[in-house]
């Protein structure tokens, strides 16, 4: 049996420690935040290709998004066709995407719709650069949140050379270019 005095002292220290733990926790909670998730800022993204290779998931949780509302529906699509393409058709020799994840559909003369097949997309961003250089930039990379495991330290964010990854509230988990367009206008 321990002497009473010792026990009291221990109780006091324990209480102090509990207050400390609570205090530390609460002080970090000054701005109690909603749940945060990772997302790519399309304005900062330089399409380095690391999203395809650095995600803990294989294939990556980063996929190409297509904001149709800002797409020009071009026949000559910089995101779909290789720049040296001889013909504007769906032939593999003309396609830019390494996994053929973009489907091209004729809508009406002279417009074509480009749709990303997310099961095939690996998030390499090759089409994104093509669309940025020769198009409206309607294709861009986003973290797909039904796939993302939301690591505490996102492995791609750590590897991103252009600081394009940021945490956004889980209630608005996407940074869509079409939204940006709406905000501006």
């Amino acid at each position, binding site marked *: 049996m321990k002497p009473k005095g010792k026990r009291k002292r221990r109780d006091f220290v324990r209480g102090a420690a509990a207050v400390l*733990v609570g205090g530390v*926790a609460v002080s970090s*909670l000054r701005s109690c935040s909603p749940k945060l998730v990772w997302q790519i800022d399309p304005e900062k993204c330089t399409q380095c*290709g690391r999203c395809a290779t650095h995600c803990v998931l294989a294939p990556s949780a980063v996929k190409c998004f297509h904001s149709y509302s800002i797409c020009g529906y071009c026949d000559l699509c910089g995101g779909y066709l*290789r*720049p040296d393409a001889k013909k504007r058709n769906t032939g593999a020799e003309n396609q830019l995407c*390494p996994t053929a994840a973009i489907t091209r559909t004729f809508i*009406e003369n002279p417009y074509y719709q480009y749709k990303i097949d997310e099961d095939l997309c690996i998030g390499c961003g090759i089409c994104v650069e093509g669309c940025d250089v020769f198009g409206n930039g309607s294709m861009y990379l986003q973290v797909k949140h039904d796939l993302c495991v939301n690591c505490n*330290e996102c492995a791609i964010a750590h590897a991103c050379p252009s600081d394009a990854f940021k945490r956004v509230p889980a209630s608005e988990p996407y940074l869509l270019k079409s939204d940006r367009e709406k905000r501006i206008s």
Partner: protein
Amino acid sequence: MRGFFMTAKAQRRKVFRWSGLRVFASLRSILLLLLFVFPARAEFRFPMPEFATGYEHPAVHTPGPSNAMVGWDIVVLIATLTLAAIFVLKRRKRREIFLLTLFSLIYFGFWRNGCVCSVGSIQNIMAGICDPAYGVPLAVLVFFAAPLLFALLFGRVFCAAVCPLGAIQEAVAIRPVKVPPVVEKVLSILPYIYLGLAMLSVSMGAGFIICQYDPFVGFFRMGASFSMLIFGGLMLVLGIFVARPYCRFLCPYGVLLNWCSKLSRHHATITPADCIQCELCTDSCPYNAINEPTPDQSPETRSKGAWRLGRLILLVPLMILLGVGVGSLLKEPLSRMHPTVRLAERIAGEDLGRYAETNIESEAFRASDTPNEELYAEAVELKTGFARGGKWLGAFIGLVIGCKLIAVSILRKRTDYEPDRGTCFSCGRCFKYCPVKE
């Protein structure tokens, strides 16, 4: 396959440029045609078409993150902690504790992919303290505080049966051998260094290194970088013979749990009643966490011990000072933890002609139009911060070494075999070795 798409990209760039003129020529005709029809917006090269066929834009599929689980995580955490405390303190059954461990491994590990975890949460808390703009979600807060509060009350029951990292190691600890107690004690300095480095990294905004070097989360998610998987695999193989190597020799959260557990209100005991000094339990603990009774007779005089203790207590401030001195020298290597500093060094090195080629980071920076001076100024400021942080880190490690020296030099009378409150994981192995059952 990593190289697969990177090189493809480099090559593609070339293709784009080379054929640029031809593409331009054809683009121009389209562009000019369209320019007459629609007023051009400066932002977009091509106007958005108006469709005559009534075509409508397909919706962009934006599934949200699954949010429902977070509440459950908190509930399951508290429940498992409570169960663990009951199993350790009341029911005293190793098998029950182990089954709970397996449940935690499956739920927190494989089912919830090892995130949120308490070990990593200290970084979020630190980030929240250092940067008021950084929000700490409630779940993270609970994952940080609950295990510590439980440790204050019941010892490290979190380690015993809740932590998925501990659980996977507990599951593979098949033939644990005893590490010499002295080696164990010396190596126990590593978690302090790791904790110090991690806190420095977070406070400077250099990233969450505990998460980057988490050995087992790769298994939980069934995917990680190759080096991470190799590190994890080695840890598991080592874990067959040296039980819980990560918990004992690396885990930074274990430091905090150790402190809290030392003060625990109720802690697991080897025997439910009085110790009969049978010594059977000593063999059962793979963690060197059972303290033997102190010998009755000290080989050295009391005054000699007191002198040494006095000297050591005087030595502590000196060790802290030494730590500060050494830490202040570590500005350069420590600051390399920060990506901005690395980038600034790279850019400076490239401008000095030190590298034959640019790398992907420096290219991205040079394309961004930020003046070098701005980057340099930021890096210099960060380095100043790291210099300050290095001193704190050095002082912390000096203090820890000093305290450890003092701790072994204080004679605490012990008559029974008792678990060491700090290092005992409450795994319950010793329970069944104790012949006293009631």
